[in-house]
């Protein structure tokens, strides 16, 4: 019954699943309706749900998210698209200072059931202003939930959980994953926020990855096994907030070694957070330096040869993990 679809197709499936179920779910963003999105990830939604519930906006990111916030506070469950995650910077006040804080500041009077979905990350040679991995921007703001799926099934399930949550969820779709395929089960798919997944079992080292780095970590794990005899456990974090520390820490305690793999530039990435938690809570179990594999702390270059060099590669993961485990 399982079906093979792309990550890109999963997006419109996910939105449609929730819009069918709940009349209060609406969707807005730039070029999302008539054009079906610049990544063609929202095709068909306008046709199925009509122009009232699926709506093209002006290039006004603050107004888009303001509209989503105001609607969420008053009974709707909006999904807002910010086309590239880089553009979150143009409406960061609405995200970080308004949406994230309003429930708290009002002592729980306001509900904020909204999802901000956005195409995140590099690898498409779009240069420094259209390639950032910014999930750490969101993770550092109290009041935001943060999700980043690595495959179509997780995308649909976590998206459903995000829409059904009464909290604001930042939903990062890794744009380099749009063409990738994965199986999805038949019927409604609903997953749970705050749950990591062990995607490959192993004993010698725990490798924690997110989104585009998950397939690379899995590939690296295969090579570590075959080339170095190292058994790596790979965990797909999936949800940065809430964070499934239980799954991560119990693995680290068992393997005694932790490496994180992230697209974030080096400083203050989510890897630093995960490493810090392990360095405090699993300290006595650790047998090797805590290791982060990241994009270096530079803006992303546009040229393909340079971009490929700086994003964490399978090769770099293999070498780094082999060294720390050796």
């Amino acid at each position, binding site marked *: 019954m399982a079906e093979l679809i792309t990550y890109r197709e999963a997006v419109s499936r996910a939105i449609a699943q929730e819009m069918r179920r709940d009349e209060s779910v609406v969707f807005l963003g730039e070029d999302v309706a008539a054009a079906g999105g610049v990544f063609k990830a929202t095709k068909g939604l306008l046709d199925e749900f009509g122009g009232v519930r699926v709506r093209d906006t002006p290039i006004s990111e603050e107004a888009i998210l303001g509209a989503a916030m*105001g609607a969420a506070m008053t009974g*709707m469950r909006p999904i807002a698209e910010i086309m590239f995650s880089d553009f979150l910077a143009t409406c960061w006040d609405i995200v970080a200072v308004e949406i994230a804080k309003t429930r*708290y500041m009002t*002592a729980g009077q306001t509900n904020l059931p909204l999802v901000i979905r956005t195409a995140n990350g590099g690898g498409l040679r779009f240069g420094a202003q259209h390639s950032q991995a910014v999930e750490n921007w969101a993770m550092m703001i109290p009041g935001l939930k943060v999700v980043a799926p690595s495959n179509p099934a997780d995308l649909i399930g976590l998206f459903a959980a995000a829409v059904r*949550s009464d909290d604001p969820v930042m939903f990062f779709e890794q744009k380099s994953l749009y063409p990738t395929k994965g199986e999805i089960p038949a019927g409604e798919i609903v997953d749970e926020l705050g749950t990591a997944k062990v995607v490959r079992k192993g004993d010698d080292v725990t490798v924690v990855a997110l989104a585009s780095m998950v397939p690379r970590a899995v590939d690296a794990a295969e090579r570590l096994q075959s080339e170095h005899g190292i058994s790596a456990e790979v965990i797909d974090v999936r949800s940065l907030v809430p964070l499934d520390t239980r799954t991560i820490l119990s693995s680290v305690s068992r393997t005694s070694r932790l490496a994180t793999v992230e697209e974030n530039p080096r400083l203050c990435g989510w890897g630093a957070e995960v490493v810090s938690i392990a360095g405090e809570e699993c300290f006595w179990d650790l047998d090797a330096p805590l290791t982060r594999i990241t994009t270096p702390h530079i803006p992303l270059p546009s040229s393909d040869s340079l971009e490929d060099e700086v994003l964490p590669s399978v090769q770099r993961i293999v070498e780094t993990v082999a060294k720390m485990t050796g």
Partner: protein
Amino acid sequence: MATTTPPAAPAGSATDVPSIDRDTRLALYRQLVRLRRFEERAYRLFQEGLVKGTSHLSLGMEAIAAGVAEALREGDYTFATYRGHAHTLARGVPMEGVMAELLGRANGVCGGKGGSMHLTSVEHGVMGSYAIIGAHLPIATGAAWSSQLRGTEQVTACFFGDGATNIGAFHEALNFAAIWDLPVVFVCENNLWMEYTAIADVTAVEHPAADRAASYGLERIIVDGNDPDAVHLEARRAVDKARTGGGPSLIEALTYRHGGHSRADPGDYRPKEEVEAWLARDPVPMYRQRLLDQGVAADDLDAIETQAQEAVDAATQAARNGPVPDIDSAFTDVWADGGSSWRN
């Protein structure tokens, strides 16, 4: 430099408007006086050190909150700024909850977590006070969109200062509201000053809101913000229009703050003659006089004043006696589940 004297007769000024009935006028006066007394007390409590952080008063500007609120009905939404005591109270939020919030007490409308700048009472349609200039205009737009989607007849009113007209969010929200015909009334309280800088010194047009209405296909509306009747009539027109599907309006109400921008600021960067001219147009005595001229008995007005004073005294008492928030409350309400946990 800023306009140094108040406009002699701003457009929309209404010294005698038969379409406002006596009850409404009394309601407006009651509101004006309540807001005035409340703000005076808030200032005193700030001076006493009981209002701890900051506080921005609407002293002198009460006619706008009063006039607009009187044009709204239950279920309508309002969005205010950090200068939002008046707008919150005018929607019927009990004084105790507001005063206690200023004092950071558990019986405050936000349990002490919001403070003076973030007064909110969702049950009264007071959808929050926002301390980032301009940010709430898009949010108010969203509330209006929601009413449109849900097919209710709710109207959203959004208050902001003259200074907010130069920030990007203003522009985005106005255009957005206009193209989707949203039921929202944007009310710019032009008190001629931002914090310590005159709006005229940093704005390319004379009327920072009204002179830009055309950019959004909207009517140019300027009203005497010290005249409750004038404000109320314009607000009523705009609210009716919004309620009947006519889309947004942008009202610029000219007014002046009696005191400084916030806290203990004496406001002495403003030209003396300007201050004096506007003090001479204090909306409270002006409106009292108008009611007297129209035959309302002084006793009736005195009674309103006494009531207001008593209400403020009672609220002050309740706020002073309010409990300090439980320490645990710092860790509640980050999430919908009531807690603040970000991990398992």
